[in-house]
């Protein structure tokens, strides 16, 4: 016990933080106690709004002007950070304590080369000359596994991929051999395979340098693999803290239990229905290609050649009535493009057949087709018009498809809200008065208003917290059973899709690689890319070792 105490690098004791708002003080953090030792990774897990990012900013001493520190202290090797002057804090940041942000696209300055941004830290905190810093920077990029570091130093952020940029950010964080590094969801903005690589890199560097790491994440599965100890934070309070195994296998607090139960596990099948594959398919997509980009107006004059960007290349698949077809792939693989083509948001080449009717272009998508094929979008904030009340949003499809008038309409809107487990009184609210999960329920209610035969769900749970995600999935499956609606479920979450889909389609860079029954996705005969994708997915927390090996 004494040994760990000596080894403590970062210590947060009884720390509380308030934000002053127009409606009084908001308690962002309440009596937080955390300790990170040298060479240790402490995972901080919580849902959005739990205060995990506030904690990170408090440690970095970068708080907004309306923040008030009510009590407690934050110590780095025994020195109280809350007592330090701004100048001292400036010297400390980047040198003794540094941070890796969620999105490398926004945490790097787009107008400076990667090398300039990396060497700035070296010059400032280690007093190196420009030349020394540059060669040191190259060595660092080499260390974070970037090929041809010399060339990478000269590149601008937009010339590097997301994974490469995050590697540069990590190199910058490790540049001055800090004592403590805060990782704020460093892999959330990246693709599955890339984030796996970044995670491996992080673990290697961590073991090599013995830095104390505070790893903030909402992803329990991921934390269970990286951290030794985990603290669960909820509404500004740490509800449970302990070793990873203890937390995941024998959670003490209800909230922790709830969180762990909400994590999708491929072994728990949630769908019991079995669609018939003998029937005529409900939706048949044949050789559908989508090209983006329009020839610039004056390109003929300037003589510049113009090439279309292919969003989809000759995709063919079919959806049976009442089937849940999952589509997985990384960002840019063309999943959403296909969904947009099927809902008439993108022009396409090729042919679709819906319930026996041929659809060769946007003009063939008449009202009956649109009524039967509905789409739910990723961000409920963006898919509900902020200037319309829920009543108006839900009544619109009824009116459009001629399914209700006057008082019957009000009744229907209430019924729709109840169907998605929302109180009838929500009809009088505006979208911004609802939580993210509630908004997504409204979007689901809107899609089901016309009793469609096929609903396309485009990453509908990825903007939501894990416990909200679980309840949304439950609702969708219930609607699926009740109306035997077919779903086209687009996601990047393989664990989730293995739970609910009958068949899974794998897409890669605009091509459809394969369509396989969900239970066969782990078979070794799958395409190379599918296997790599599966290998990169973090095993869910608390999964049995046998399953973790798969």
């Amino acid at each position: 016990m004494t040994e760990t105490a000596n080894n403590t690098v970062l210590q947060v004791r009884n720390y509380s933080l308030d934000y002053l708002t127009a409606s009084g003080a908001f308690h962002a953090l309440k009596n937080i106690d955390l300790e990170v030792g040298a060479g240790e990774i402490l995972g901080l897990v919580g849902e959005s709004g739990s205060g995990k990012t506030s904690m990170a900013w408090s440690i970095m001493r970068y708080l907004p002007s309306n923040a008030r520190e009510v009590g407690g202290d934050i110590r780095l090797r025994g020195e109280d950070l809350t007592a330090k002057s701004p100048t001292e804090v400036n010297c400390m940041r980047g040198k003794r304590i540094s941070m890796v942000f969620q999105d490398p696209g926004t945490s790097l300055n787009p107008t400076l080369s990667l090398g300039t941004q990396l060497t700035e830290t070296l010059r400032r905190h280690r007093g190196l000359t420009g030349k020394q810093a540059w060669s040191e920077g190259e060595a660092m990029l080499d260390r974070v596994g970037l090929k041809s570091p010399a060339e990478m130093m000269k590149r601008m952020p937009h010339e590097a991929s997301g994974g490469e940029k995050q590697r540069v950010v990590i190199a910058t964080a490790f540049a001055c051999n800090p004592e403590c590094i805060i990782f704020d969801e460093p892999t959330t903005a990246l693709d599955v395979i890339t984030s796996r690589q970044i995670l491996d890199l992080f673990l290697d560097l961590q073991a090599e340098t013995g830095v104390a790491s505070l790893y903030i994440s909402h992803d329990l599965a991921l934390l269970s693999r990286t951290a030794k100890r985990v603290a669960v934070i909820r509404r500004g309070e740490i509800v449970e803290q302990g070793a990873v195994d203890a937390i995941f296998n024998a959670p003490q607090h209800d909230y922790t239990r709830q969180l762990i139960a909400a994590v999708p596990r491929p072994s728990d099948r949630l769908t019991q229905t079995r669609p018939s594959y003998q029937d005529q398919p409900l939706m048949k997509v044949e050789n559908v290609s989508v090209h983006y980009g329009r020839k610039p107006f004056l390109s003929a004059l300037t003589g510049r050649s113009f090439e279309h960007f292919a969003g989809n290349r000759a995709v063919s698949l079919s959806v049976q009535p009442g089937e849940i077809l999952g589509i997985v792939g990384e960002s840019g693989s063309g999943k959403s493009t296909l969904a947009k083509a099927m809902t008439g948001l993108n022009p396409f080449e090729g042919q679709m057949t819906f319930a026996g009717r041929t659809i060769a272009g946007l003009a063939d998508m008449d009202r009956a087709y649109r009524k039967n094929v509905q789409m739910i979008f990723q961000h409920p904030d963006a898919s509900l018009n902020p200037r319309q009340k829920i009543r108006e949003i839900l009544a619109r499809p009824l009116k459009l498809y001629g399914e209700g008038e006057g008082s019957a309409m009000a009744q229907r809107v209430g019924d729709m809200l109840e169907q998605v487990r929302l109180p009838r009184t929500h009809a009088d609210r505006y979208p911004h008065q609802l939580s993210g999960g509630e908004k997504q329920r409204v979007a689901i209610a809107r899609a089901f208003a016309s009793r469609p035969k096929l609903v396309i769900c485009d990453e509908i749970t990825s903007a939501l917290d894990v416990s909200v995600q679980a309840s949304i999935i439950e609702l969708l499956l219930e609607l699926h059973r009740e109306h035997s609606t077919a779903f086209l479920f687009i996601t990047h979450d393989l664990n989730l899709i293995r739970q609910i889909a009958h068949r899974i389609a794998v897409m890669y860079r605009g091509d459809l690689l394969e369509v396989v029954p969900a239970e066969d996705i782990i078979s070794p005969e799958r395409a190379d890319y599918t296997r790599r994708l599966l290998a990169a997915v973090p095993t869910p927390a608390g999964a049995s070792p046998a399953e973790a090996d798969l």
Partner: protein
Amino acid sequence: MIELLKRLLRTPQGAVGLVLVVLVFIVVLFGPLLAPRDPEAMSILARYKGPSASFLLGTDQYGRDILSRLLIGARSTVTMAVFATLAGTFAGAFIGTVSAFLGGRADEFIMRTIDAIMAIPNLLFALLIVNLLGSSSINALVAVAVAFAPGMARITRSVALAVRKQDYVSAAIARGESSRYIILREMLPNVVAPIVVETTIRVSFAVMLFATLSFLGLGAQPPATEWGLMVSEARQYMHLSAGILIWPSLAIAIVAIGFNLLGDGLRDALNPRTGG
């Protein structure tokens, strides 16, 4: 609405702007009642007088009471400016939203046309229209409205383009809504905030543009009490009495500053991110 007013009053520029604009509107509404004298009653003996108890702001070259002329002139000056701006705003906002919604070649065509029109300075463009239509107050109003529309269209389009990419517009298209419904019900309500701000600021430009047109003799005609015209007429007599020139100029400045400040305040008040 009350919430918005509160937020508006919290910023100094919003509070000052609101007070000035409210004062201006009181004068516009009740000016003729407040005016102590007949604005067109001449008096040979009382020419070029400085401020006194009987003529609070003095008299002009014909011995007319400047205060009364200003109070009555507010109605034509400010009302004209507001109506011209509103007309220009509605036309511009509609063109901009339609252009953003249509996209592609239609958007390109509309916007390049607008660019070509915008290359002509506002004043020159207004002069051109007044010259074509003949000089009168109504024609000046049309000229200012037409001159404002392209700028409004550009601003609206840039906001509408962002709205066009929102999923609720995609959702409306996917459910098969008509273009009319999407433009009027889904898009326009969401581009309104920046347009309101821009409109308020433009009212002050319109006041000045009208004043300039009248000054050049192309707007209101004597003996109208339009402020720009008053400045224009006073020019030749300013060595006899500076007040004739100063008071109407000051009135124009107050209206311009008031609307400008109100616009600044509204921009902050309508932006949810700046509010507490």
